[in-house]
């Protein structure tokens, strides 16, 4: 089975994917960067195996490009990227958004990552969750960045009350076991 990691740019999708891959497959998945849209193509890691409470779940993990409704090359300029490179990055990032949306028809389950320090009521969050649900794909909403003082997991949970919910810090690894248990119980 394949598990897609979805969410807006810079919510910690690749950090979480790396943490899961290191824990369960022994090596990271992709590069992490403070620059938005660092992941611009779908990254896949096969043979990621979880063994929890006597259950074994083997799957392919897919780290999706961040989904956004506007990709502005000017956002990259502040990171010292040249205009030409920024425009190229914007094009690739937009292609990544399209690819991520199209992959919704290919994944068997989804982790939907939300930055717990940000307002969860966004057009992207609501639309993507709606699209995944419309395909009857099992979803776990993951509130990430709980290690940061401004994290508000309650707000995330209240925003999307109908979904299975886990709060983690992909950066520190806090409550990753809780996430693994939720994945296995949901998908096995």
């Amino acid at each position: 089975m394949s598990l897609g990691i979805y969410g807006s740019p810079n919510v910690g999708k690749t950090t979480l994917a790396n943490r899961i891959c290191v824990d369960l497959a022994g090596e990271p998945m992709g590069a992490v960067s403070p620059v938005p849209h660092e992941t611009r193509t779908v990254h896949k890691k096969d043979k990621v195996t979880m063994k929890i409470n006597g259950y074994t779940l083997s799957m392919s993990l897919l780290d999706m490009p961040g989904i956004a409704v506007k990709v502005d090359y000017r956002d990259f300029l502040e990171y010292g990227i040249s205009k030409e490179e920024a425009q190229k990055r914007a094009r690739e990032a937009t292609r990544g958004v399209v690819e991520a949306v199209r992959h919704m028809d290919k994944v068997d389950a989804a982790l939907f990552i939300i930055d717990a320090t940000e307002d969860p009521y966004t057009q992207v969050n609501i639309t993507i969750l709606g699209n995944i649900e419309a395909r009857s794909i099992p979803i776990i909403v993951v509130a990430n960045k709980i290690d940061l003082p401004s994290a508000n997991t309650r707000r995330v949970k209240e925003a999307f009350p109908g979904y299975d919910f886990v709060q983690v810090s992909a950066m520190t690894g806090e409550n990753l076991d809780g996430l693994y248990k939720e994945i296995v119980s949901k998908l096995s």
Partner: protein
Amino acid sequence: MRCERIGFVFGDSLHKCVRCDRAAIIIQEINDGCPCGSKVFVFIRDDSTASPLEKEAENEKSNQVSVESPKLEFSLDANGKKDAVDASQEGANGKAAPPPEANAPQSIEPAASSPSAEPNGNGKAPSSYFARMTFTTEDVENIKIVTEGVFAVDVNALSKNPVVLKDEEGIYYVRLPFEQKKK
């Protein structure tokens, strides 16, 4: 020369008859027609009154002419005879640059109709216009803003992708699909 003929003007702008090149003196002439019988006038706008968009379009046009014309330029001598002048040779011979009048639209028109400048001649849109109108495999967007109020749509791509619009600056806007669960 131009000032002597200006009658009905807005600043330095004027309406010229396309047949006899005479400037309209009163606005009634534009309604009734030129004394030569033609009813078609072309409005020649003073640069200072052109909108930024028009100026940009004009700059683009003149830039393309200047890129394409160095190989072969045409000028009219006193007898109206058309001479082909190799601009690069002229430069090499150290001749003085032509007076500003030589860069006026009258001298550009023959150059634009030369084979090297054909894509821009005869009122055709510049090639960059068509480049914006067409879609390649490199393009992510399925809608392009060609110019203000003019859009190009890649219908094939629209049928299987989210709507992606790219504006003139290269900023992308994505309309995510919104599917609702079937009950």
